[in-house]
């Protein structure tokens, strides 16, 4: 069941083509990564999805149909240009915004209390937003996005300003929401977090879809014929290995065409050195990002 279906959307501002013919689908209970360099068109894509911008071409189906006023209460959105009322107490600010999403006050208070406890903000609930640190404000923003229990969550850079402990807290929260069936579209530049959380990704560059699909499949498609090994003992020349590159206290072995990782493993196992680590070399999402966006890998 598709929660979001974006089909061929195009959006221009004068001579600037912000988004060109972008299509993707997001299933229920999926965490989908919407990636791209700054100015790639991610925010415009999200704003078109939410009907804040009308597309020049293309269609968007969100929660089984076009975006409507009634559906706003079923969506949680944390925008790039985020903020809360700085001169208002945290609790009042979040309760007000929840009330606009149609959450009854009593219910909102109960949920808010639980989230504030969980994200370690309970003791700051009566402080004005401007008195909170950036990290605290970020967590408050996350609470605001999920307080009304949305079915679809669209979060732009949810981990900004968070320390590693809080990153883990938010990641756990997102995994939990996914388990509950919430669909999450996440835009971030922190690729290692995308690798940990997302099932599928869409990489946009200059408004165009440049990479799209299952994360594992994409990494496979970018992996060359190479293995990563760490040995206790000397790494003697191995037949079928074209190049040996020192890497992370081990070696990256680039294989000749026709040589398989199994051939290399057998050769290493029969040698004098003890194999401490052996894995197929897959590029990180960071590397793929740089190669695609910076290196012109895919046009």
């Amino acid at each position, binding site marked *: 069941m598709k929660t979001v279906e974006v089909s061929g959307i195009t959006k221009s501002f004068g001579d600037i083509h912000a988004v060109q013919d972008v299509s993707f689908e997001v299933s229920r209970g999926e965490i989908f990564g919407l990636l791209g360099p700054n100015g790639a068109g991610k925010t415009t894509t999200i*704003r078109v999805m*939410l*009907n*804040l*911008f*009308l597309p020049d071409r293309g269609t968007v189906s969100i929660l089984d149909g076009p975006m409507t*006023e009634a559906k*706003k*209460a079923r*969506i949680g*959105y944390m*925008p790039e*240009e*985020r*903020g*809360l*009322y*700085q*001169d*208002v107490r945290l609790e009042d600010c979040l309760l*007000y*915004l929840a*009330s*606009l*999403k149609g959450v009854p006050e009593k219910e909102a208070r109960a949920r808010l209390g639980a989230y504030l406890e969980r994200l370690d903000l309970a003791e700051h609930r009566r402080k004005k937003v401007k008195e909170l640190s950036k990290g605290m404000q970020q967590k408050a923003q996350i609470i*605001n996005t999920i307080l009304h229990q949305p079915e679809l969550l669209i979060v732009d850079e949810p981990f900004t300003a968070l320390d590693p402990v809080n990153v883990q807290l938010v990641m756990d929260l997102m995994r939990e929401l996914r388990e509950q069936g919430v669909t999450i579209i996440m835009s971030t530049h922190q690729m290692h977090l995308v690798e940990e959380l997302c099932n599928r990704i869409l990489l946009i560059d200059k408004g165009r879809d440049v990479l799209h699909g299952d994360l594992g499949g994409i990494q496979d498609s970018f992996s060359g014929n190479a293995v990563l090994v760490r040995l206790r003992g000397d790494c003697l020349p191995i037949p079928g290995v074209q190049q040996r590159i020192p890497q992370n206290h081990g070696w990256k072995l680039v294989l000749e065409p026709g040589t398989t990782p199994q051939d290399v493993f057998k050769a290493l196992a029969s040698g004098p050195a003890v194999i401490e680590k052996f894995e197929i070399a897959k590029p990180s999402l960071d590397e793929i990002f740089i190669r695609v966006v910076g290196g012109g890998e895919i046009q």
Partner: protein
Amino acid sequence: MKPLWKVAAFEYRRNVFKKSFLFVILSVPCFIAFSIGMGFFIEKNRTDVRPVGIVDDCGVIRDAKLPPGMIADWAAGYAKPVEFILYATEQDARLAVESNRIQAYYLLPADYYTTRQVEQRYIQSPGENAEMQFFDFLQLHLAAPHSPQTAIRAAAGNSTIVRSLDGQRLIPAGGPTFSLLMPFFIVIAFFAMIMMGSGYMQSAVTDEKENRTMEILLTSISPFQLIGGKILGIVAISFTLLLTWTVIVLISIFIAAQVGVAWFNDLSMDWRTILASLVIAIPAYVLATALMIAIGSMIAAERESQPVGMVFVFLHLAPIFISWSFINHPHSTLAVILSLLPFTSMLAVGMRNIFTIVPAWQVLTSSFLQSICALAAIWLASRAFHHGMLRYGQRLNWRRVLAGKSGGLT
């Protein structure tokens, strides 16, 4: 509660329940209290009922043949009559002043009839009532050869009543009364509200941009609910100000009337003209509010709104610049046109109401036009808000606002 009302309530609470609002709300009462205090102080200084001495070297007082009881009849015309004491020599009068038995003395020199000069001598300036009554007293004696009735009339002076040609307005001899000026005060209060409220109107939009809450709000409620709620909230803030000030002014008037300030003796209200002022002032206020929000949505920085704000102020104040026309010809074509046009009608009708009764058709037409414009301005504000909300640091032009597709940003 619908989102519109939630936004209104939030906007109201956010602005009203803070210290700076308390300052705003107390500023006018403090000013009024200060003015009244000054008035009492001045009034008190003006009124000194201690006797006044006269040294009559020319005999105008001494030799006048006034019928018995005439001075008492004349003095009865004053609320606080002053007693006049004749002194044979200036030395006696001086001693009386120095011993505080009289507040001052007047010296009528021997050549008074030819020079008209009177000398006033005092240690501390006498009250204005004493000065005024002395000259009336002098006139009474100058007119002594005439009949007592003529003499008293000459001493008391004349009283002029101004009546409009159509006979619908009457300004008593003491000048316009409070009740006559009441409708004008109402429109001035609304004008003050527009001026004071412009800050709230501006910040209603720019705050959302500065706090970066715009997208969160617009993915929760519609632009119309957001902008409508904000307008309602600001109107409620303004009416809180107006109501508070009105209560304080009424209490002040009551106190002033009790104390005996003459201007507040006639507190009767002409409800018809008050109603006429209100039915124009309320939509005028909504119109100005919505337009200020529209402008706030379109501009990139708050300073850009100042020239436009000046134009609004000028349009509202235009009738005051030609107030002479309303005084001389309250039913002239210019007066009628200004009474019908949005922006100018509020003060135009308010000023005309002092001198005449503005015909009902003009009031209703003006109110209708203002209401239509106010609705259009709300629509425009909603549209400008919708189109300009995500343009951080960018300006939006009217053409784009009017040409944009509905249902989302273009």
